């Protein structure tokens, strides 16, 4: 048996130079220090992406976009053996993937792994995050249930509020003036063709950069003399730990999918009023809340425009960080960059929490009998009918 494996390896090695790859993996090392745990989050994200790809293909076997979309997801959830499991896994893994990207991004930020020569790693990572969020946004509508319908409707009002190009863009994505089966068709194409076609090569580029530059050392480790630094071989040590992390990630996913299977809800009915407290997925909550707050403070479209400018500016600064703080001799700039990251994290957490608190209150207000309160306090400006 061993001889057969050896012969197969030799045959493949002569054609693919596998020895080189193995040699590279053995030579490659990963720094070992008290912050090493953060190195695993990129791998965890990759794992969730692979789960998404596999479970997504399985869902494709039964999903039908267009007018049948809700019915097909109903069949997946209630009629097809283990359909509910695949769908729950796909939905949970999507959320866990975005979460692990956030963890990965902030760990990269605070370990200063965006510094030279890793700028392209930082930028490609941000682009992957944006795409992952678009994956989430486009996938959320596909079951065409009540929550997805209204959340998408509200969500699309965000780009629509941009001056001049906003309404055109929103109409283009919606396939008309309203969210309907044409929107589902477009979102489906975006979700299973356009985004994967962009995401996969970019992910390849991102991973190639990681291999090329290796893992960055956090400043606390960089300050130590070289002889005091510890490393572990990538293969097998880091690889084995990575595998264990993947298994644990799989288990977390299994716990969530088994204990909290993803609900389907009611079919979307555009004639019904939007349920109170409707909100987008958690990773858009921060933007949603900021727009709502600015919309309440300022009259007309000014609030939404300022909100959008605020976010766009934040994103631009976030992308420019590697240029502002390029290397370990950045000194004061390095510290300022860290404060900026802490501020960004703080704003993100606070506005997300605030958003959930506000929508929860709206739901409660609605549940109480009596005349409905009028005014902006209840209706997010982004959801106002145009």
């Amino acid at each position, binding site marked *: 048996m061993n001889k057969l494996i050896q012969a197969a390896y030799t045959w493949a090695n002569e054609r693919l130079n596998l020895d080189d790859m193995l040699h590279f993996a053995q030579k490659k090392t990963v720094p070992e220090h008290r912050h090493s745990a953060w190195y695993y989050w990129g791998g965890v994200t990759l794992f969730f992406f692979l789960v998404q790809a596999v479970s997504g293909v399985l869902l494709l076997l039964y999903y039908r976009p267009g007018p049948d979309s809700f019915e097909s997801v109903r069949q997946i959830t209630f009629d097809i053996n283990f359909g509910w499991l695949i769908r729950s896994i796909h939905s949970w893994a999507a959320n866990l993937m975005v979460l692990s990207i956030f963890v990965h991004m902030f760990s990269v930020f605070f370990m200063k792994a965006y510094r030279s020569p890793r700028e392209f790693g930082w930028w490609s990572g941000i682009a992957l995050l944006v795409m992952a969020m678009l994956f989430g946004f486009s996938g959320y509508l596909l079951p065409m249930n009540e929550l997805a319908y209204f959340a998408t409707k509200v969500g699309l009002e965000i780009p629509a509020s941009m001056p001049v190009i906003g309404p055109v863009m929103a109409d283009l994505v919606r396939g008309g003036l309203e969210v309907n089966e044409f929107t589902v068709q477009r979102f489906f194409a975006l979700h299973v063709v356009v985004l994967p076609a962009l995401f996969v090569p970019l992910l390849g580029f991102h991973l190639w950069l990681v291999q090329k530059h290796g893992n960055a050392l956090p400043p606390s480790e960089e300050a130590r003399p070289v002889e005091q630094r510890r490393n572990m071989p990538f293969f097998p040590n880091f690889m084995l*730990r990575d595998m264990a992390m993947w298994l644990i990630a799989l288990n977390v996913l299994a716990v969530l999918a088994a204990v909290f299977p993803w609900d389907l809800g009611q079919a979307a009915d555009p004639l019904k009023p939007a349920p109170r407290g409707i909100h987008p997925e958690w990773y858009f909550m921060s933007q949603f809340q900021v727009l709502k707050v600015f919309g309440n403070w300022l009259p007309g479209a000014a609030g939404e425009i300022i909100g959008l400018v605020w976010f766009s500016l934040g994103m631009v600064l976030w992308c420019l960080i590697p240029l502002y703080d390029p290397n370990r001799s950045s000194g004061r700039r390095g510290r300022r960059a860290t404060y900026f990251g802490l501020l960004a994290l703080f704003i993100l957490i606070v506005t997300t929490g605030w958003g959930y608190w506000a929508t929860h209150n709206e739901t409660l207000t609605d549940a109480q009998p009596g005349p409905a309160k009028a005014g902006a306090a209840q209706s997010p400006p982004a959801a106002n009918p145009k």
Partner: protein
Amino acid sequence: MNYPFWDVPHIGSGWVIGIIAIFHIMISHFAVGGGLYLPLAERKALREGRADWLEKVRGHSKFFLILTGVFGTVSGVGIWFSIGLANPEGTSTLIHNFVFGWAIEWVLFMVELSTAVVYYYTWGRISNELHLKVGYVYAVASFLTLVIINGILGFMMMPGEPWLAVAGTGQEASRFWQAFFNPTYWPSLLLRSAVCVSLAGIWALVTCSRIDGEAEPRLKTEMVRWSAKWLLPSFLAMPFILVWYLWQVPEAQRALLQLGMSTIGTGAFTQVTRMALLMVISSVTVVGVVYFLAWRLPLSFGRAHALAVLFLGLVVTAAGEYSREMLRKPYVIGRHMYSNGVRKSDVERLNRDGYLPNSPWLPANATVLQRGEGMFRGQCMACHTVDAYRPMKRLMAGRDREAITRLLAILHDSKPDSPYKSFMPPLVGTAEEITALGDYLDSLTAPK
């Protein structure tokens, strides 16, 4: 019925038992498996003349004594308290039917606890051979506690035809052995023994993770790998034992598993399948993580890794016990007593004479809503709460009074094609009592 009701808000009394039991099982199964691990590790160290091994085994025995002797015993008593309060009828049946079994069990507990103490305090004070013998006595005694309790737990799943033939006649104890060696006895004993061996390995890894790999590389590598091996037999045997176990479980219970494959339904419909899936995948994860982190990289196996394995073991135990409990539905003692304490043989009588006359705790001049609440407490509260776990407020939301009446009629009739029949007891009582329950449930969702 004849006892006061234990109202645990939000989580329900079942979860109080559940939380204590899952914690207890993690430790009690370790007490059995660890009982074998200690003398075998000691024997290996003595044979190979390894003083460093002996020192670590001694350290592990201290950890073992404290964990099993303190937390294991306290949580065991906690189970008795909680089951007595949550399901007095079921507990009463267990006590009356297995008086002799419990007596044997407690004698074995005494032997187990005493030898555990003797084992720890006689390290280096008596001869090695005698010390090892004490370890073996502990191992045998602790295994026998499993042998006994397994019969009683298996009885609750499936008492078997001989016992069911005399159930309710007062002659139940005459079928002690048939009830004890019930149809699920042997697969269940094997399954639990396998879990004990695994948990011995998992807990030992916690101790081994504290060995300094840089100072004692050989010791750490050997002990981590030797402990990791303890997970292997159970992992290999588990699928076969599980299939055997399910083979013995009644067809109606197995049907619950099938239902959960095709649909998520809501609530209890599919929990058995989901928890069973979780148990399988978590078991694979435990073995995988132990292979990658302990077997392949023993020197860097640290406390965080060991705790991750322990936590995963907890998930497996919790999922396994939860599925076993769910598989027993709608009974607390298979085909004899429903999960709310109503005996199957009493259903007709309670429908005719009423359920509430058996609840002396209800005031004589109770209002309709109070009577309805009495029905809820007696027949629903074993599995449902008002507002949190399997909450009636959510389950009744969207149903008007008429819909609640129809639902209660389905539960009362409990016809063979009823979707609730496989996991919910029939609703018993007179028409007036059921109307009172309907009014009470309606009041939970009505605007205040």
